[in-house]
């Protein structure tokens, strides 16, 4: 193994450092012209390892052109690394230009970077794609020697990762000599990352050297329960906030991780109510205004905060040396994610990170215990690689045409050198290209609107400057839900909430956002104007798809713990007692079987199945099971899915339970139902947006033009329905189905469950609710429906509203009866129709409706 040359050796020595073996190993790989994947725990000097070969090369052979490109998933990380690199560069007098290029980079600096590129450029996948789409990309990247991809484990397997992989393949074209370095945390699957870095797109091509740093000290994980009553249900963990607060007070700096933004708001508020010492505690989540988030990050970096309550928005990010405690509130749902979060505490390799898990309910206690076990056994979870998104490819093809004309054959070869597209079929490639050209519809009516055209030699050209500008404006693979900015009247923008949430607000309603009680005043086109509110009837904005389902690996461990009474000793006493009670009153769910309980309650029959396959899988399964219940004449009334169980209730007693969980369940109507599901609609929306069918931005929209942008948007659900009826095999629908099947492993999980249940289903008929069923029943009402059931629910709701309001409205007499032949006298209005009701006095007048009753 080599050593460091001067002045690097001296610089290390002056700081009392010795180069670590993996840092030298990366240097060796670089000297031998190999790409490399470095897997190292946090605090292992990973970033410096990635840049050392560049710094040394630039010292030995000074270059005036762009030499090293660094790509990170986070803008903030790029900015931070630039700062950290500048220090050694200046101290050693290397005289390097180190600059960042992100969406925030001002126009004049971008222009200057084009004139005189820095030797080291730090950027994000999106900004790289913009650079590659520019007409002078080949001059900018011609002298490129190295590409460093940071946090590669967080990029590979995502759409941003797909885009970057295509960008890397393009870079190899423009600069064949450039070598790649990937920096990764410990992962479950290495081969996909090796493939990702390979210039051939394959793990076995041998052009990437694997370098592994020794694992750091194992993390120390503790469980924290609330004092007193251990909650049966709920996911927020608010009961434990006093303990969380005590731990914050007892540490220097704490990150309190939660699972959703709504949970962040509620926990933050709860902590402030307890905050008698006025500790500086802040909050960080993806919907808060960027300036606000940056302020929190800066305060954290400066050591001015004692704690920050954060969502996944802080899973990755800059290194805060001072963080000495991580608290995870709510079950972690996956081991890899937990480790990522735990690693945010104490970025020193040789000392263990300390973290506390705070389960919100009894099942979560078991899940946390399972996660701690898994960490101790070095067992990671993670999804196997999935094929690259065709929507991302469509966007990339347009972007590449913006750079220069290309030939489809050459482009197909190039694209397949990106690992996510290594197995891309020529048919899919051609269909995606046709989509990029003119929409790719069987009905070829858009000849005159085409975006790409072929010349006589078969080269693809972008139509004109306007089409190019439009394509460039819509680069990027992050699709947000429609959001509305929240602005304090006469004050600043506080952040944004999802459009649907605002649509549910009436003026005067209070909601919790950014840690303050706000009162909704008005909606002006694109902004939700608010004033200071109070706690009365306060709501918390929620965001779609923000909860992750329980991972398969954790699910297995949870089942194993429940099945094994010896393992209960490690659990807190109330949980052990709860399981013992279950064993006495019903039975324990087995690891390799399926326990189903049925019992009557409130005049209904409940069926609770202990599947442990995650909420999303249970939702799908619930639909299938209740359909079958319907056909069996059981009169199903509803169902709900938690991460652990599926509960359904019906008018009549389900007796042949095994029949409800037979494997042929999956064949029936599943396809149709999935096509109708909101999950597929959401998938289509993302795909259509990334592929460019729906624009995020339209040329000619200025800052105030956002309004017209909103008007320009066509609801993707409507497009989906029309396309499905008239061209079900369109490439975007194929991409949608493929992504739903591959990305969501739920259907596979259901299949595995049904296979497991075959012959091993145990049905317990009880006379009342069992201990394990209670948490699910507490959540009753959070049901999920799709397709045909919607109409039945609508009818039910309309009938209920009528009943509650006594069918009163001011012109009720003119309202037609559904029975024919009723003669209406148009003169009679404003006389409320009243039906006599026996129980009138016993029924409370619903709030909100009372005010609207005619006097």
């Amino acid at each position, binding site marked *: 193994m080599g050593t460091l040359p001067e002045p690097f050796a001296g610089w290390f020595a002056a700081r009392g450092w010795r180069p670590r073996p993996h840092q030298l190993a990366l240097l060796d790989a670089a000297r031998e012209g190999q790409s490399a994947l470095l897997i190292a725990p946090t605090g292992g000097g990973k970033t410096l390892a990635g840049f050392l070969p560049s710094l040394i090369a630039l010292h030995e052979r000074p270059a005036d052109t762009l030499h090293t490109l660094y790509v990170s998933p986070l803008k903030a990380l790029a900015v931070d690394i630039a700062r950290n690199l500048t220090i050694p560069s200046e101290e050693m007098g290397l005289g390097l230009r180190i600059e960042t290029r992100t969406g925030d980079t001002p126009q004049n600096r971008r222009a200057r970077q084009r004139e005189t590129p820095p030797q080291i450029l730090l950027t994000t996948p999106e900004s790289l794609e913009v650079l590659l789409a520019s007409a002078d990309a080949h001059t900018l990247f011609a002298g490129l020697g190295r590409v460093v991809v940071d946090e590669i484990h967080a990029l590979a397997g995502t759409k941003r990762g797909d885009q970057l992989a295509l960008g890397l393949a393009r870079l190899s074209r423009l600069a064949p000599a450039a070598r790649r370095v990937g920096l990764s945390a410990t992962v479950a699957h290495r081969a996909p990352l090796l493939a990702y870095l390979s210039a051939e797109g394959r793990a076995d091509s041998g052009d990437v050297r694997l370098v592994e740093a020794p694992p750091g000290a194992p993390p120390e994980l503790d469980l924290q329960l609330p004092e007193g009553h251990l*909650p049966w249900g709920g996911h927020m963990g608010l009961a434990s906030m006093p303990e969380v607060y005590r731990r914050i007070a007892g540490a220097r700096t704490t990150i309190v991780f939660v699972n959703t933004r709504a949970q962040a708001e509620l926990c933050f508020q709860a902590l402030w109510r307890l905050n008698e010492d006025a500790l500086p505690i802040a909050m960080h989540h993806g919907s808060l205004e960027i300036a606000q988030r940056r302020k929190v990050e800066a305060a954290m970096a400066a050591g001015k905060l004692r704690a920050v309550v954060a969502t996944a928005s802080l899973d990755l990010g800059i290194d805060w040396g001072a963080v000495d405690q991580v608290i995870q509130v709510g079950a972690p749902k996956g081991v890899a994610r937990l480790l990522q979060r735990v690693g945010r505490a104490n970025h020193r390799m040789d000392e263990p990170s300390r973290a506390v898990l705070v389960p919100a309910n009894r099942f979560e206690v078991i899940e946390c215990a399972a996660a701690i076990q898994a960490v101790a056994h070095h067992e990671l979870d993670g999804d196997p690689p999935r094929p690259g998104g065709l929507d991302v490819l469509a966007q990339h093809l347009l972007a590449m045409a913006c750079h220069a004309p290309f030939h489809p054959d050459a482009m197909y070869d190039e694209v397949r050198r990106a690992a996510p597209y290594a197995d891309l079929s020529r048919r899919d490639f051609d269909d995606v290209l046709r989509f990029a050209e003119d929409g790719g519809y069987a009905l070829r009516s858009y000849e005159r609107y085409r975006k790409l055209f072929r010349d006589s030699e078969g080269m693809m050209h972008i139509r004109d400057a306007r089409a190019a500008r439009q394509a460039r404006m819509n680069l990027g693979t992050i699709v947000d839900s429609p959001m509305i900015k929240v602005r304090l009247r006469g004050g600043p923008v506080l952040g944004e909430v999802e459009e649907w949430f605002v649509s549910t607000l009436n003026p005067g309603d209070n909601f919790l956002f950014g840690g303050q009680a706000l009162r909704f005043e008005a909606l002006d086109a694109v902004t939700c104007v608010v004033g200071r509110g109070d706690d009365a009837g306060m709501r918390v904005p929620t965001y779609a798809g923000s909860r992750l389902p329980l991972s398969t690996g954790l699910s297995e461990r949870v089942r194993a713990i429940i099945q094994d009474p010896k393992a209960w000793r490690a659990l807190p006493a109330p949980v052990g007692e709860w399981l013992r009670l279950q064993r006495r009153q019903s039975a324990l769910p087995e690891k390799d079987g399926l326990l189903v309980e049925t019992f009557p309650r409130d005049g209904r029959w409940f069926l609770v199945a202990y599947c442990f396959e995650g909420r999303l899988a249970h939702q799908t399964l619930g639909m299938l099971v209740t359909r079958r219940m319907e056909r069996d004449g059981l009169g199903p009334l509803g169902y709900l899915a938690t991460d652990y169980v599926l509960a359904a209730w019906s008018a009549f007693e389900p007796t042949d339970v095994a029949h409800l969980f037979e494997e042929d369940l999956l064949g029936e109507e599943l396809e149709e139902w999935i096509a109708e599901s909101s999950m597929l609609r959401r998938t289509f929306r993302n795909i259509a947006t990334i592929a460019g069918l729906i624009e995020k931005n339209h040329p000619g929209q200025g800052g105030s033009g956002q309004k017209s942008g909103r008007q320009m948007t066509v609801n993707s659900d409507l497009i989906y329905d029309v396309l499905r009826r008239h061209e079900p095999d369109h490439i975007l629908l194929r991409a949608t189905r493929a992504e739903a099947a591959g990305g969501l492993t739920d259907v596979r999980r259901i299949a595995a469950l049904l296979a497991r249940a075959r012959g091993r289903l145990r049905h317990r008929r009880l006379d009342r609710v069992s201990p394990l069923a209670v948490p699910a029943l*507490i959540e009753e*009402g959070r049901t999920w429906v799709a397709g045909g059931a919607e109409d039945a629910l609508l009818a039910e709701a309309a009938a209920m509203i009528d009943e509650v309001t006594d069918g009163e409205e001011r012109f009720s007499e003119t309202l037609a009866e559904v029975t024919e032949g009723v003669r209406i006298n148009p003169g009679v209005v*404003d006389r409320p129709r009243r039906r006599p009701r026996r129980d009138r006095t016993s029924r409370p007048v619903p709030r909100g409706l009372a005010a609207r009753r005619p006097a």
Partner: protein
Amino acid sequence: MIAAPFHLGGERLMLDPAGALFWPARRTLVVADLHLEKASAYAARGQLLPPYDTRDTLERLAPILRRYRPARLVALGDSFHDRDGHARLPGPDRALLLRLLDGMETVWVLGNHDPVPPDLPGTATENFAEGPLVFRHQGGGDGHELSGHFHPKATVPTRGGPVCRPCFVASPQRVLLPAFGSLTGGLDARDAAIAALFPRGARLFLLGRERLHSVPLAALPRPRALVPDSVPLQQFGGAGGPPAAAGLPAAVRATAASRRP
């Protein structure tokens, strides 16, 4: 499909769950906001939406025409997405449209999107009056009025979460029709622009698969407040009930429970 009768100006009108309105006494069928050729209008601006919206809209209109066999069709404006839309009709779609209109009087009420008469059979007009009823693109005038323009839709919270559908908005003075076009979105019926037309309240008829679902506009309950955190077991089944019957007020939940067998 069960159409619901509704009386306006003494006339009996049938609200069809497909989003059209039929006036049996005058054998008149009314549809609003077809927005034909919307996709190609977007395509011209660089968004290549599926070119099937015209066909889809007409194929949904065809069975309604067969069912009611009207003598007259009134399109309440914005029949085309832009003023050149009628000229862009692809050959087969144009032929289908002509076939549908054959033997029928057609009235094209002009809208803000299509302020010029289309090059198609029928008469074009700003307002159309027949008997006691007035047909306008944008409502708000005198008389008993049928209009479109706003694309009303409504969201009703149900046990299974909010359900959003296009809807008729009806009062003794006027009926607002939902947009019929396939790529047309909607405006919440609670929006001030719609409420201004119904100062004394209105009843909504949400489109369903087989029938309409009727709720008073004023009674649309607020969607569910997020119920924070765990409910101790003792409270289960108590005064508050389970955390959320998806947004219905407490009394509605009580009713819901009592309705269960």
